[in-house]
């Protein structure tokens, strides 16, 4: 009898604790799964902390789910199990997959439904356009965006009598060829190296020169698109790089950034093309020479070079939560887009501020006078309004297609194939992937 009573008391106690918890735990939890680690992870945590401190209705919980691939896979598994977070960060190549998933609450709609009147015109258009659907509506909120630029060794350039390059006016590829030839002649081991060859030498090269990467407006207008990178201009560019390999003007040091970066840091190469996110890495690693950044080179026939395209990731809002929770999501996304957060983000990670007001504000404060490298990418990306060829790329199985392009390019570099044959084969192989993707969604 006594025991039974004890149990009842205990039960009531537990119940009251739970109920108290319910009453006290007023703030609604918003889960955000992201792929930001180490230094960037700290910046993200600081932003979340500031949001949570700024109001008491919502608590954002940020969880790092590993790198981009792992985060997307964690999101997919969660969606399949019905336990998805409110916000999922996904990288730019996964845009098509996310868009077609049927699990996404489009950001433009979310903001409208929750009563936010966002002035999308104030955003960097080449960033927004990457995440818009065919009707020009924003599907996901851009978060971390970068673009490739060209770094060069100022000291080595001095040795061959070349001064600092303009930070806004790109040099031509012919000029770069001459510079690289002089570098090699002056005893530098290699002229130029490039990181992320598919992103920089194919995708961005096509965008800057206003060449379609794929039919159907780079895939924006339909799943029945085909890759078109075997056009004479891209073929010429790749063939030229291959020709430069013979006299060391170009050196291939790997698909990612580690190899090329170490060639540049060791002063074995005078020119290095990589994302603007390399600024921080170079600032940390380079001690014994001076370097600077310039826009990517442009062919002499291209009088009005287009904007370059972005890399990075965006935040996707996932379906299946309550309206109260979505209010919190919208509040958080709006908070991230404020000047204060955008400036903090840009200063600490090097990724672009996504609004023009944040950019102007930084400029007025003299930030770019102190950090001149940071502006090169912004200039290059905003120098013209995006065209259908330069607003972005919307391909299914894009990750595999990038792999295919990487593989075929390597076969050019090691002499197994000509540029034409390799790009023809890349197109053929990629089109098979595109048709497979199309079949998955059209049944």
């Amino acid at each position, binding site marked *: 009898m006594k025991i039974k009573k004890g149990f009842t008391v205990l039960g009531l106690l537990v119940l009251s604790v739970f109920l108290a918890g319910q009453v006290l735990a007023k703030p609604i939890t918003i889960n955000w799964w992201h792929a930001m680690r180490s230094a960037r992870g700290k910046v993200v945590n600081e932003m979340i902390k500031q949001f949570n401190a700024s109001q008491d209705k919502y608590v954002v919980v940020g969880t790092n789910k590993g790198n981009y691939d792992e985060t997307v896979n964690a999101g997919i598994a969660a969606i399949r199990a019905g336990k998805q977070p409110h916000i999922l960060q996904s990288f730019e190549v996964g845009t098509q997959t996310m868009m077609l998933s049927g699990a996404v609450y489009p950001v433009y709609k979310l903001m409208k439904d929750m009563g936010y009147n966002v002035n999308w015109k104030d955003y960097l258009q080449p960033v927004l356009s990457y995440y818009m659907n065919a009707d020009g509506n924003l599907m996901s909120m851009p978060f971390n965006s970068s673009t490739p630029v060209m770094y060069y060794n100022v000291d080595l350039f001095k040795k061959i009598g070349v001064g600092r390059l303009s930070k806004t006016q790109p040099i031509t590829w012919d000029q770069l060829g001459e510079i690289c030839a002089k570098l090699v002649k002056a005893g530098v081991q290699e002229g130029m190296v490039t990181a992320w060859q598919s992103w920089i030498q194919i995708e961005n090269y096509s965008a800057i020169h206003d060449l379609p990467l794929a039919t159907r407006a780079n895939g924006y207008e339909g799943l029945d698109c085909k890759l078109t990178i075997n056009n004479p201009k891209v073929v010429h560019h790749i063939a030229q790089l291959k020709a430069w390999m013979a006299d060391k003007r170009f050196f291939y040091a790997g698909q990612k950034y580690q190899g090329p970066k170490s060639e540049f840091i060791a002063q074995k190469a005078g020119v290095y093309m990589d994302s603007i996110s390399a600024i921080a890495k170079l600032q940390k690693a380079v001690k014994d020479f001076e370097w600077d950044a310039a826009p990517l080179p442009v062919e002499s026939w291209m009088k009005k070079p287009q904007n370059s395209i972005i890399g990075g990731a965006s935040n996707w809002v996932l379906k299946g939560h309550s309206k109260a929770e979505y209010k919190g999501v919208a509040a958080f996304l709006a908070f991230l887009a404020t000047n204060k957060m955008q400036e903090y983000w840009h200063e600490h990670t090097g990724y672009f501020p996504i609004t023009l007001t944040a950019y102007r504000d930084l400029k007025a404060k003299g930030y770019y006078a102190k950090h001149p490298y940071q502006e090169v990418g912004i200039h290059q990306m905003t120098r013209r309004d995006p065209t259908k060829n330069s607003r972005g790329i919307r391909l299914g199985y894009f990750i595999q297609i990038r792999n295919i392009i990487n593989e075929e390019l390597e076969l050019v570099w*090691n002499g197994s194939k000509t540029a034409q044959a390799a790009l023809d084969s890349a197109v053929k192989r990629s089109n098979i992937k595109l048709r497979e993707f199309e079949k998955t969604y059209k049944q």
Partner: protein
Amino acid sequence: MIKRSIFKSKLLPYLLIGPQILVTAAFFYWPAAQGVVQSMMRSDPFGLHNRFIWFDNFSALFSDPLYLKSIAITLTFSGATALTSISLGLFIAAMANRVFKAKTAIRTLLIWPYAVAPAISGILWLFLLHPSYGIIALAIKRWLGVNWNPVLNGNDALAMVVMASAWKEISYNFVFFLAGMQSIPHSLIEAAAMDGASPFRRFWAITMPLLSPTLFFVTVMNIIYSFFDTFGVIHTVTQGGPGGATNILVYKVYQDGFIGLNLGSSAAQSIVLMTLIIIITVLQFKYVEKKVHYTI
């Protein structure tokens, strides 16, 4: 008279093996069956569009020249890895078997690499052999003038991943070979020595045949290792490159399934891989085992 307890109940044995069956079914058969089902589907990563397409994924695989190339690469890679690690493991074991001073210390040191995870072993070798920052690579380039470039040259890359994978497995083989050699009666070897057989002859005529069960076991284990466990090495060292020259089957499954989110094709590849390994194991047991001496 052997004392036996006999249980009359017909249910009891089933009850006793029940938990094991359950675990096996839940963690082996059920996922494998799911894999078979998935291999005949075309589906999006979120599982919202699914369609049964029979063997389309398989026919797409086998009409893809790159997949056939990947099979060839896998066979070359595992053959080379197994051969390297077995021969070196055997050599080191034969040497260590004759050591008298600091026996335990030397053997312990030789076993250590096995404790290193494949991914870490890959990174270690990358720091030695990467053409831009590898210590050995830079040295042989400077002093020997060898044009070593695994970033660009497929054969160099294959050699590099074979080295990284075999290095780790040498220790494993070493342990088994050493144990095998120590179980060979000394009297046999001494008798042969008295008859005037050279150390080499003694090794071939006595040690090798008596070691054959170990050799057989180690070969099977090594081939399975090089098929499946070398993922970490490939992932850290070459990511399947350059130009797909080190894209072994198990890495392709990961690339297409996990990275590329093409689940149907990836599942079909897993089934092919599973079939391949079953065939290899059956063949090994059927033909190689006949030549193995299990008794002295």
